[in-house]
């Protein structure tokens, strides 16, 4: 077919369009709706009596009401974390005693039996194995409880209600209401959350959603928050309240993340990314009874084990690097010690320490290994050499007490813990997320903004809390 006839066809289409007039679109839509309504009406029989009680609607009125919506959201989150923290204690202790107190010394004995040189034993068992063992014992139990619970809420249909509640706030912040959905995805994984922003059509609002997604706490960071809250916040109150208070602390950080999402969306939409919020309609799906066993199974396989595997594969090389850098001595001090000492001053300034900062650098590929790295570096640089021997002193009680001991030796205070919680919320995204942001935006500028903005905020806020705490002499 020639270009000539094509043009003719398009011309006559445009002429006819004039003829038909403006209301064509509406007429077509009307025809569509009329037909759909008629066909549906013929195919569906409704029961004669009016429904006495619509459970879905009643629940919706409650969970999306202005008065109860947010309290219910926070209460549900607290319940989930309380169950996670309470439930993870015992299996964590069991795993720690198995992997660290039993298997680790056995491996060292095996190394002796086979006449391994000290460095080989060190790299393999004190480096690679120990890092992997920490990851498993610290992360597996909370994840195995948290992910299925969260997935059950998702399957039940609660997430769109969360989006509904947050929509008003997002549009006030000049962002798209669907950002609530990508943010909720970010609570699982920020890289997935960034991809999920594709549901937002406006490029401006999508960029806001991408840049602020990192403020939704991801899989890799939950265990850090849960552990630090359990040890330092829960440890500071009477035992009966410990679980509840630690859960509240974790929720507090998550809610703070949501507030920061609003604040930074508001800031971006008034400075770098000016514009009006667009409207959209969100369908509230029916509540569906979740299939409990299938949900538990798939969230174990798809989320827990995948996240754990990612953490282990990152932890093994990290463990080797940490061990090696702690044992290669240059000028009388190991490389790790030199790095830690180098960063200690700045770390002190923002209420953290050199070990934590080195850990966050090591953990750029995966946030999951922050805690194991902190523990290994503390053990190796603070001279707690008996951990490697399995002397039993450190791991006699349960894993949390053992960790507490190690961190106290490392000079941790409540300020360190609180600022670590804050810094865990506010730091650069992991390298996978950074790469995803670049792939989605194809812009170095916005990738840099999304990467650096949280770190700058994190350093600023921890600097403020540290200065305040020191001014008032709290630490």
């Amino acid at each position, binding site marked *: 077919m020639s270009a000539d006839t094509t043009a003719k066809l398009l011309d006559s289409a445009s002429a006819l*369009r004039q003829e038909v007039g403006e209301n064509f679109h509406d007429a077509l839509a009307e025809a569509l709706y009329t037909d759909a309504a008629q066909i549906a009406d013929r195919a569906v029989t409704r029961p004669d009596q009016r429904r006495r009680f619509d459970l879905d609607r009643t629940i919706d009125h409650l969970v999306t009401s202005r008065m109860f919506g947010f309290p219910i959201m926070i209460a549900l989150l607290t319940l989930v974390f309380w169950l996670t923290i309470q439930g993870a204690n015992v299996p964590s202790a069991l795993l720690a005693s198995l992997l660290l107190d039993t298997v680790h010394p056995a491996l060292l004995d095996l190394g002796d039996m086979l006449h391994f040189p000290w460095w080989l034993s060190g790299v393999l068992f004190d480096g690679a194995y120990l890092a992997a063992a920490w990851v498993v014992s610290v992360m597996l139990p909370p994840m195995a409880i948290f992910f299925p619970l969260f997935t059950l809420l998702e399957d039940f*249909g609660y997430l769109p209600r969360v989006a509904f509640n947050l929509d008003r706030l997002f549009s006030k912040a000049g962002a798209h209401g669907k950002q609530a959905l990508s943010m909720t995805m970010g609570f699982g994984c920020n890289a997935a959350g960034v991809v999920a922003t594709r549901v937002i059509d406006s490029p401006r609002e999508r960029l806001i959603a991408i840049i602020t997604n990192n403020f939704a706490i991801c899989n890799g960071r939950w265990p850090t928050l849960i552990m630090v809250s359990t040890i330092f916040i829960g440890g500071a109150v009477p035992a009966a309240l410990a679980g509840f208070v630690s859960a509240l602390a974790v929720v507090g950080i998550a809610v703070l993340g949501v507030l920061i999402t609003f604040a930074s969306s508001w800031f971006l939409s008034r400075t770098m990314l000016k514009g009006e919020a667009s409207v959209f309609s969100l369908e509230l799906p029916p509540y569906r009874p979740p299939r409990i066993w299938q949900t538990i199974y798939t969230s174990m396989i798809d989320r827990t084990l995948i996240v754990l595997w990612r953490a282990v594969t990152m932890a093994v090389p990290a463990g080797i690097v940490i061990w090696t850098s702690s044992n290669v001595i240059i000028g009388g001090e190991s490389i790790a010690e030199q790095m830690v000492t180098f960063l200690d001053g700045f770390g002190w300034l923002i209420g953290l320490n050199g070990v934590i900062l080195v850990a966050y650098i090591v953990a750029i590929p995966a946030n999951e290994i922050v805690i194991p790295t902190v523990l290994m570096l503390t053990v190796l640089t603070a001279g707690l050499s008996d951990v490697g021997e399995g002397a039993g002193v450190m791991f006699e009680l349960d894993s949390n007490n053992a960790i507490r001991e190690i961190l106290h030796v490392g000079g941790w205070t409540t300020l360190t813990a609180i600022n670590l919680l804050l810094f865990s919320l506010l730091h650069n995204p992991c390298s996978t997320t950074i790469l995803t942001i670049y792939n989605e935006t194809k812009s170095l500028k916005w990738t840099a903004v999304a990467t650096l903005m949280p770190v700058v905020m994190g350093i600023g806020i921890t600097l403020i809390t540290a200065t305040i705490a020191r001014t008032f002499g709290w630490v």
Partner: protein
Amino acid sequence: MTVTIPTTKPLNAHAACETCPMNRHLERLGVKMDNWDYVIALAGNPNTGKSTVFNALTGLRQHTGNWPGKTVARAEGGFQYGDERYKLVDLPGTYSLLAASVDEEIARDFILFGQPDVTVIVVDATRLERNLNLVLQVLEITDKAVVALNLMDEAERHGLQVDPRRLARDLGVPIVPMVARRNEGVKELLQVVHDVAVGEIQSRPHRIRTTHHQALDRAVDQLVTQIEAEFPGLPNVRWVALRLLDDDAQIEQAIRDGSLGDLSRDGSDTAIPDNLLIAEVSA
């Protein structure tokens, strides 16, 4: 196509057993798809269980979640049913195909230019009226369609009685009632998809009537004649005419660059255009 349609009826009992649908076996192939006999598109409103149907057929575990907008790009997987291998493409959930958003554009472009052998439209039985908007739009584009009437259990729970036979008669395409998350209706769906793919079922789907607008009907008729002259054999002339009248820039572009013309030839063994193969997003 590598498969020919059997035209003769089985002659003896043994042959009948071999070809009996009950003996056909579903083999889930996951993502291991290199060659396939038929391409099946999976369309539907958001949150109707498309991904659940997708998982039930392919054995993949694409993340399913009870919220709309979860599948943001296309996911692909494969299965073998009987002797034929099928490639299944899960399209993003949309309420319409007017290409007002990226999702709608992806879904529409695939159904129009990807020319799937069968388009399965997953429909929420509890919200039939709204879901039918999309069904009617898909039926404007293709007549090789099957409606999977999903969530029948919930319709029951809400006290709704949905009559699949009435629906099939009105829509003019096969209807398969399902409860995908309990695997109910999957076998039936496979059989119908197979029958439509090989051409054993020929549908004459419902087309939107616009009789109450005379100027419009005249304009459509006039354009249809012109388009038919330009693109003989185009399967959805009327829809193209409607889109042109609605000032659809993409369809105009497709006419200009000839991609619409490609559809009027026997497109059954043309490859899927590269621009439709959007990167798969892991759940």
